[in-house]
């Protein structure tokens, strides 16, 4: 992994051997650019790149491409997320070209939450291609300079290709194989689902290392600090594919009054400390959902600052 595939800062940080630290930001439910800029201000300088979600949980928001372009103007590197739920292959390829033209250099390829979760459950779902095929498509566009149909692209998009992995979704025994499949399809980096079950994640990483996957791809461990017991219960019961051990819920419950959020942050910091030492983990992806203002403090306390200049 020596030559750069893109001009992405995240790629340079990872290739220089630094422990990467990425953040996440949901675009506004409207055209409130000021609110987006305010959220970004907490992330600027504290992370290497910021994931911009694409109509996450199938709720309509400002487009991830447009919000990513706003980030670039603000001097923050976006990781442009794209789901297969809302676009067919024509729209996908044209958005990839558009995103690259606007200066976007990282792209995370996802299937997307089914629209039945969201605020327009009446919508038709697209799923012309799946996330695996999307990864392969971005790679083909970048490395071969070809569209899906084989026609030449006039200036191919040079993107650092990301994909997601959920080590906790079932069937567990297949998850590491699906990770391998994504890497074979062309993923340069992986961001995992939020990790709470550390035992299971250690086992997952051990398998990934044994299979040689971490030699071929950078794995960023997903961390979302718990703000409250209610949030932990909601994550445990209502978010698909989430594994929240009772032990963690009890730990939060046991925190002194007004100290639950601090306990959640402490757990996240312990996780980050372990990930820094864990074989095969190349960084942390911090998803501080609607808690962006907390990122500077978490980054500082986790010893992630200052971020490397590469």
């Amino acid at each position, binding site marked *: 992994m020596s030559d750069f595939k893109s001009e992405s800062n995240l790629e340079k940080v990872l290739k220089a051997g630094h422990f990467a630290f990425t953040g996440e930001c949901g675009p506004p439910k409207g055209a409130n650019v000021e609110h987006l800029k305010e959220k970004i201000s907490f992330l600027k300088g504290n992370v290497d790149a910021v994931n911009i979600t694409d109509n996450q949980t199938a709720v309509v928001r400002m487009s991830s491409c447009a919000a990513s372009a706003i980030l670039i103007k603000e001097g923050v590197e976006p990781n442009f997320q794209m789901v*297969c*739920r809302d676009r067919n*292959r024509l729209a996908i390829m044209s958005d990839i070209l558009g995103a690259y033209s606007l200066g976007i250099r990282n792209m995370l390829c996802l*299937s*997307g*939450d*089914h629209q*039945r*979760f969201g605020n327009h459950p009446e919508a038709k*779902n697209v*799923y*012309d*291609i*799946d*996330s*695996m*095929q999307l990864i*392969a*498509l971005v790679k083909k566009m970048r490395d071969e300079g070809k569209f*899906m149909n084989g026609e030449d692209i006039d200036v191919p998009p040079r993107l650092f290709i990301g994909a*997601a*992995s*959920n080590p906790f*979704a*079932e*069937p567990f*025994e*297949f998850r590491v*194989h*699906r990770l*391998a*499949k994504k890497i*074979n*399809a062309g993923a340069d980096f992986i961001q995992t*689902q939020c990790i709470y079950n550390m035992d299971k994640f250690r086992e997952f990483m051990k398998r990934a290392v044994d299979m040689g996957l971490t030699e071929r791809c950078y794995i960023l461990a997903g961390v979302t600090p718990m703000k409250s017991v209610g949030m932990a219960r909601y994550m445990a019961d209502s978010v*698909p*594919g989430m594994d929240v051990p009772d032990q963690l819920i009890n730990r939060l419950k046991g925190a002194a009054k007004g100290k639950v959020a601090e306990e959640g942050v402490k757990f996240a910091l312990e996780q980050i400390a372990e990930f820094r030492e864990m074989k095969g983990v190349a960084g942390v992806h911090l998803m501080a959902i609607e808690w962006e203002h907390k990122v500077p403090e978490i980054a500082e306390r986790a010893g992630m600052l200052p971020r490397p200049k590469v």
Partner: protein
Amino acid sequence: MIVADRKPLSEIQDMIKGRDNILIIGCKGCVTVCNVGGLKEVRILASSLRIAAKKEGYSLKVDEKVLERQCDPEYIEQVKSTIHDYDAVISMACGVGPQFLSEAYPDQKFFPAVNTTFFGGAVSHGIWEERCAGCGTCVIHYFDGMCPVARCSKSLLNGPCGGSNKGKCEISKDVNCIWDMIVKKKIEQDRLNDLLNFMPAKDWRTARDGGPRTSRREELIQ
């Protein structure tokens, strides 16, 4: 078979409002098998409409008829002599029936009494499940006889997605995750390697996405 659900009585009543002489035509094909549009259901709908009309204080004449199939002009022909004796006709066949009837008898008004839903079968008495999406390019042999195009909510060819949970789909605890079933069967039969192959994007031209489809069998065309 083609599976359908009966429309609510009130919707059918609204369709035929202002008409007092109706024919209901059932079909002995799929809708008889899935208990929605055969002889029995024609009789039930006819009685229900008569009773409802009586309650509302007007008289409604409803005749009943069941054709062998409504997707074949040969059988559609059988109602030629009587079809114009009515103010309107209700078809209890799948969506094909009222269309074939309309094409054969352009002067008559046809109403659908059922909502056609999917290609599937009865998994137990009274429960039908979708099995086929009619995509025009069958791939079930890659997935041990289970179709992810029809049965995965996202039609993933390289599943399962991260929303698979205890064998259920992320959209509902009532929906099985077909990818969970595919993976488990492959593991049981020691053929997990089959799933490590990348499945390329599907050519949707053979599906409805390629436009309305026609199947031509040259050897049968006279």
